[in-house]
């Protein structure tokens, strides 16, 4: 018996030693850092959203380094300011790869800058994960991976999503006005909305386009008031929707329902006249998204860091969520491939989906896009809070699309 006890103690001791060794291996990453390079619009007209992506990236890298880093090595994010300029983004990505010699690159913010980065990535055979590319038809590089949840045919999927939501509402619209900026990514999706409305038998009472940067929305508001649509599709980017709402309120007019394609979510939420506005999103701070503990922790950290950075609105919504998802994708791909080799990472991504906070991302379609379906939902500004109202399985508990 004493001999048997000794054996048991020896085994237990060995197991304990192993457990302690494993824990210390996970305690902190070590070795030379994995350097991930990217640019963001930290200044210039896109800086407001660039700041969101910066905060998310910082949160993610800190969390990575608190755990086991990437492949057991700490992560260093080499971030440069592209000043919202695609030409500068191109130069900086060249610099990141050839001078800073980063191990991996991550995409910048916004379509034009991503397109620039993509050209550089292609030249140097670097894998490029990105989140806010609005013109999928231009993404012809085989090792680019969109992690923003948008389909390859958003001019089909987003209008279908929106019109499905309206058709299922208590008062589906019969007439529609499509008003849109001529900014490339919103323009072509808005043209898709026209087609979708026509196919569903909705009467188009107005179709108006303005140049990106238009300051005076008074005449456009007056034309909408004259046209009296049941529903207005606003193909607006950033503050354009707000400017239009302001102009409509000044002439004592608000359409019964209005949808904004890519608004600046904070200002639209707070705008007088923004009540019941609809918009597209991949994530909001309610169930079922908050059933995911990873999302809950990210929300907590983002609130903290956003407040410290002076953001007027610190809720996690589309931009911050797809940014986080792109980092999740990078981490999963590097871990999955077990390597920092760009080709290995690309091959892994083509074969494996990633469960990110916005949903399941996959890249097994043409040029790594999925067609016919995406991860977007319709949200509505209800009492000063964005809540998802469609599809029903993602709607906030008890929420439904409010119609007039």
């Amino acid at each position, binding site marked *: 018996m004493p001999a048997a006890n000794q054996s048991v103690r020896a085994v237990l001791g060995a197991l304990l030693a192993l457990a302690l060794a494993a824990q210390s291996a996970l305690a902190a990453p070590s070795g030379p850092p994995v350097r991930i390079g990217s640019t963001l619009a930290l200044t210039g007209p896109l800086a407001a959203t660039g700041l969101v992506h910066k905060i998310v990236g910082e949160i993610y890298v800190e969390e990575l380094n608190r755990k086991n880093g990437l492949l057991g090595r700490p992560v260093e994010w080499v971030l440069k300011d592209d000043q919202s300029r695609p030409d500068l983004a191109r130069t900086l990505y060249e610099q990141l790869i050839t001078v800073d010699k980063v191990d991996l690159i991550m995409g910048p913010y916004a379509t034009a800058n991503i397109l620039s980065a993509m050209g550089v990535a292609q030249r140097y055979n670097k894998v490029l994960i990105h989140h806010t590319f609005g013109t999928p038809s231009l993404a012809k590089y085989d090792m680019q991976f969109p992690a923003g949840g948008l389909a390859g045919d958003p001019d089909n999927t987003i209008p279908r999503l929106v019109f499905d939501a309206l058709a299922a509402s208590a008062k589906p619209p019969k007439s529609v006005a499509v008003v849109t900026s001529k900014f490339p990514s919103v323009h072509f999706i808005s043209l898709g909305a026209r087609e979708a409305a026509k196919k569903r038998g909705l009467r188009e009472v107005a179709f108006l386009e303005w140049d990106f940067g238009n300051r005076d929305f008074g005449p456009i508001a007056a034309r909408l008031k004259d046209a009296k649509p049941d529903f207005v599709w606003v193909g607006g980017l950033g*503050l354009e929707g707000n400017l239009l709402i302001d102009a409509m309120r000044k002439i004592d007019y608000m359409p019964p329902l209005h949808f904004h394609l890519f608004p600046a979510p904070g200002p639209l939420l707070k705008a007088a006249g923004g009540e019941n506005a609809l918009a597209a999103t991949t994530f909001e701070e309610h169930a079922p998204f908050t059933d995911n503990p990873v999302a809950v922790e990210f929300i907590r950290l983002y609130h903290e860091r956003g407040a410290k950075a002076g953001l007027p609105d610190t809720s996690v919504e589309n931009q911050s969520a797809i940014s986080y998802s792109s980092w999740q994708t990078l981490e999963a791909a590097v871990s999955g491939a077990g390597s920092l080799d760009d080709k290995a990472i690309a091959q892994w991504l083509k074969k494996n989906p990633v469960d990110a906070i916005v949903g399941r991302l996959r890249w097994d379609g043409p040029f790594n896009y999925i067609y016919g379906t995406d991860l977007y939902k319709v949200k509505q500004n209800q009492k000063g809070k964005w809540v998802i109202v469609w599809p029903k399985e993602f709607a906030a508990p008890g929420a439904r699309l409010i119609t007039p």
Partner: protein
Amino acid sequence: MGLPSLTLLGQSLLSGLFIGALYGLLGLGLSLSWGMLRQINLAHFALAFLGAYLTYQLAGAGMDPLATLAVVVPFFFALGVLMHWLLARFSVSAFNSLLVSFGFTAIIEALIQWIWTADFRRMESAYGEVKFRVGALYVALPELLTLAMALALSLLVWAWLRHTYTGKAMRAIAEDAPIAAAFGVDVRGLSLLLSGLSAAFAGVAGLCLALSYTLAPGQIYAWLGVVFAAVMLGGLGNPLGPLVAGIVIGVSEALTMALTAPAWAPLVSFSLLIVVLLARPGRI
């Protein structure tokens, strides 16, 4: 599209009038410094936005937006004097003033972003909720205030230049500074005064921007093209010029947007500029 209604036309005309007034107000200081001091001050737009942000900040602290002028105007006057002193100290030529003021613009934009971040800021005020009904048309109070301020300042400056000794001296400096100095005009002092006033007008334009628009640092450059067009069309150094030209541009853009494709609106303003410059090349 059928015939536009009179309400649509009327409302668009009003919209054009109001935004034209803002073009005029933004262009007033620029026109004076360009026409009379031979300084093309790109930083004028950055100053206007700095004024807007200061108005936003002071209003957020509880001050009435109009009352913020009591702080903003003297402060901007001092800034304008300082800027001109620097340009005069280093004998910066007209062309070089464009480059130097562009540098000031970048500095001011960075300062705005450092203090208020790049995120959007919107000043909520009681003025924003007030609108008047004139028949079937609506007139919003912030826009009416902008028009009133643009008219008042333009007329005041015009009267000052035309009917006061200082104003006449200023016109003499613009005509021929050395000869004016020879006749006892204080060229340096009056130049500093005019520069201070131009910057102060930028501060007033900033209040109007804050009353009607959501602010972001990157928007400084969105107004450059059209305001430059208004200044050039109106004639450099002519205090009423930017206002009249601004209103012509604003109304023509608005009517274009009301009657045809809104995307054609910028084509109208810049075509006007080209036609006028070709017809009267001596304007600049």
